[in-house]
């Protein structure tokens, strides 16, 4: 199934794209998606323990299942305010 992956801030720079469309085999979780994107962009690996993630603009857990067409976002540590 296809999902859209969205990166922000330094992750976006390291991934070299704001969004990418990738193919993962069902059943898949956010973690599966992360494994797939870090395979393509190994520079992202060091963020593994410091990312937050969201599915369809709702915060999620890495263990959460993803579905066909989902929008999965990876967020580096935040610095707003």
């Amino acid at each position: 199934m296809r999902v859209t992956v969205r990166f922000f801030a330094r992750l976006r720079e390291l991934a070299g794209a704001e969004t990418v469309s990738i193919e993962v085999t069902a059943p898949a979780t956010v973690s599966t998606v992360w494994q797939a994107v870090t395979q393509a962009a190994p520079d992202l690996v060091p963020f593994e323990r410091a990312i937050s993630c969201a599915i369809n603009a709702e915060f999620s857990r890495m263990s959460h299942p993803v579905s066909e067409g989902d929008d999965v976002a990876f967020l580096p540590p935040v610095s707003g305010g």
Partner: protein
Amino acid sequence: MLSVTRDPLSVEALTAQVEASVRHRGDGCGAVASFLGLVRATHQGRVVKYLEYEAFDALALQVFSQIQAEVEERWPGAALGIVHRVGRLAVGEASIVIVAATAHRAEAFQVCRYAIERVKQIAPVWKHEFFGDGEAWVEGAVADPADEAARMRALEIACA
């Protein structure tokens, strides 16, 4: 009263909105505390040329709503506005404005402080600093809106 914008922020405009929302509710509105985060001219000794803020807009709005709901639960009758600016900001410009309105002043200060602490913990917004001699992304907290320990820390800071 909750938004992400590319435009310059106005504490006056947000104050008017927030005050109007509580003027005739409960004990009315006697106190407004507000907070502005501004771009500083220097950071750790380096001269700042400008900053760029980036947000996950849709998620940021949800986070602001969550913070508003947390505030309403803890401080019934309080009103809260949060506007975060994104894009390129010059030194002296405001990146965020938070306005808290309550009947009495102690609560206004608490709500305002709580809100900025929560924004810094969980709002999906990122600061990119551009110096005279380079640039750096700032990375603070790993955002987890369900982290109760973080929420309690913000409450403690606000209500100390």
